[in-house]
């Protein structure tokens, strides 16, 4: 983030409490900590079981296709890029470009999920799912590998899904644009987003305050999206690259 956590934590400010951009971002970062700890529990289980059954994990991982995982990694990384571009576009006041980049991010997220779904469907088609007859005949380690595979990638996919929902809401808010101040003023208000002068001027105030809030919301949604990305970056080698 542009401002370090240190300065965020140090500065007490009694501002109008609904427009505290630093506070909103601090809140989002705290929320991301909780998400890391949520996944942390699963990573802990993974670490214990993999240490206990290293060769079973190694063998079970051969059934996963590294190509599928690599493609999904590329898709998610690209979606993070388009997310950053969306935030940057809105900072420069280019609302329509921001919407386009946001739409691209959502499309890539959906593509990731489709890829994931087809991978799961193929596995389940082969009879590789928890408590399946095929898996129950295998070793404990392989069962645990698949338990973790479905649990961890499933929870991650759920997060992608939630992220898509959040992005869709923000896309809708952007599409609606600022509500007050007439068409032209509203357009100018959005275009000038980030410029202090526009924010201070009385007539355009409502429009640009709403736009500033959109900016904070988009940036926070971006932070969440990057978290989802980061989690996947760890899941990818742990499942696809250990065979």
């Amino acid at each position, binding site marked *: 983030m542009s401002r370090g956590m240190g300065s965020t934590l140090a500065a007490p400010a009694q501002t109008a409490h609904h427009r505290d951009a630093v*506070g909103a971002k601090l809140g989002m970062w705290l929320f991301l900590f909780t998400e890391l700890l949520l996944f*942390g529990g699963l990573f802990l*289980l993974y670490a214990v079981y993999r240490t*206990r059954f290293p060769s079973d994990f190694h063998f079970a991982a051969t059934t996963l296709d590294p190509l599928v995982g690599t493609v999904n990694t590329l898709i998610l990384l690209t979606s993070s890029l388009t997310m950053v571009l969306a935030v940057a576009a809105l900072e420069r006041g280019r609302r329509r470009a921001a919407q386009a980049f946001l739409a691209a991010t959502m499309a890539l997220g959906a593509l990731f999920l489709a890829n994931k779904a087809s991978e799961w469907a193929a596995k389940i088609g082969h009879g590789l799912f928890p*408590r399946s007859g095929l898996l129950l005949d295998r070793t404990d380690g392989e069962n645990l590998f698949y338990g973790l595979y*479905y649990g961890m990638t499933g929870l991650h996919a759920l997060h992608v899904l939630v992220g898509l929902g959040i992005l869709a809401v923000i896309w809708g808010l952007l599409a609606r644009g600022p509500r007050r101040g007439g068409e032209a003023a509203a357009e100018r208000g959005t275009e000038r987003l980030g410029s202090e002068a526009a924010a201070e001027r009385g007539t355009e105030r409502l429009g640009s305050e709403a736009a500033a809030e959109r900016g904070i919301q988009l940036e926070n949604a971006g932070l969440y999206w990057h978290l989802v990305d980061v989690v996947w970056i760890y899941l990818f080698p742990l499942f696809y690259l250990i065979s």
Partner: protein
Amino acid sequence: MARTAAPPAPLACSYLHPGGGRGGLLGWVLTTDHKRIALLYLYSILGFVAVGVALGLLMRLELIAPGRTIVGASTYNALFTLHGVIMIFLFIIPGIPAIFGNFILPLQIGARDVAFPRLNLLSWHCYIAGAILAVTALFTGGGPPDTGWTFYAPYSIRTTTNVTLAVFAAFVLGFSSILTGLNFIVTIHRLRARGMGWFRLPLFVWSLYSTAWIQLLATPILAITLLLVMMERLFGLGLFDPARGGDPLLYQHLFWIYSHPAVYIMILPAMGVVSEILPTFARRTIFGYKAIAFSSMAIALFGYLVWGHHMFTSGMSDTSRWIFSLLTFLVAIPSAVKVFNWTATLYKGSIDASPPLLFVFAFVFLFMIGGLTGLMQGALSVNVHVHDTAFVVGHFHYVMFGGAGFGLMAALLYWFPKIFGRLYPRRPVYIALGVLFAGFNLLYFPMLVLGWMGQPRRYYDYLPQFQTGHLISTIGSWVLLVGLLILTVTLMRAARRGPWAPPDPWGGTTLEWRTASPPPVENFAVEPAVTGRPYDYGALGRGAAAPEGR
């Protein structure tokens, strides 16, 4: 402190009766005013306490004589599970932070509201949704859960009772807790009034701050653990199933990584309340402000590293057992730092033995018994003998009820005039305290003795030689109930018909006493400026920084 002739409170423009906005019920359940949300929590939490108390009384009644008395074994299992789930997840964990944190925190730091008012409302909605799910779990599926509030695997995965829904309820409640903690951290960082530096924060705020960090950093571990129980039951992942290589012990680790720090979510805010009440009624600044503030943070930190002491008999390695034992002893240090500082605060104070202060004395006494019996169990050799006995039940009731519960009652009595704008009569409250204190010790002290003699916990039946102890304990539960009823009736009457309270009825020095009782919607007419430390009674004597109405 003579503060007589209180002017009628400006009730007409208080948060209880605001001019604009939505009226009626919607004006409450859709409010974003932290004070109204605090009251929503107060009433909903007290409602669930009543249910939890009723379940506890039923259990005690069953145990009045050996053999089956009123319920059978499986009903008894459901009773202690529900009593635990309700009292822990619906009462003590949200308890003081959600009620008094919400109401008092913004006032004490001179803010207009919390940082995210709408998120605050969402946490209450999560709380209610979780509570409804928990109640639904009783009447649907395969019957009420019978696993104990700890949901230990593998039994929680195999039992046919409605564990899935109960676990999901706890998950949703966890969300509420996380959001509250997050909100408080951002509020304390961002919304302090001008001049309110970190070491000018009231100690209640410090305790909420450390609590909020635990809520934020520990609850997600519980969330994933409960999610895994659900996934095990729904999809059979096998991660805790020994038949497929899973390790149930890992469940216990994950569960206690949250649930031990959760103990400090329960007790730290109560300690903050004590640190507020003592200086006010000793008319003296708190002894060792920084030591108390930092001991809160130290308890939060150490509290993370001691979860293994719940698992001494689970078959962990000896090395981890003695490390956990050592760390457990270390937690006692910051706790004792607080107790000694509180005692020192009273030295040479001009003590006003008001109801909140007497509840604080009860707190300190009961908490010390709870804390010292906790130390006994921290020792491995003793732990092996008293593990899973009534001794443990007695111990944690001394900490949770004697500590957090009495802390909550003290907080209610201390801030009652601020919240409702009314005063309550002292006499019935003194009587209630006496009855409560006697009933409490009658109820729980025999458990310590019985457990020491070998009475296991969670049994609906027992050997004849334990009957005297159980009988005393059950009688104690009735005495305790009488005390609770006296207190409830007194306060409910006072909230409606008590005389008007002045802004600062106790002579407190923190910011919440500088605004009207009950406070107006916007809390302060002008943003208060802070020029010194809290609890500065010396400055009060010199005429500086005195609260209004001097």
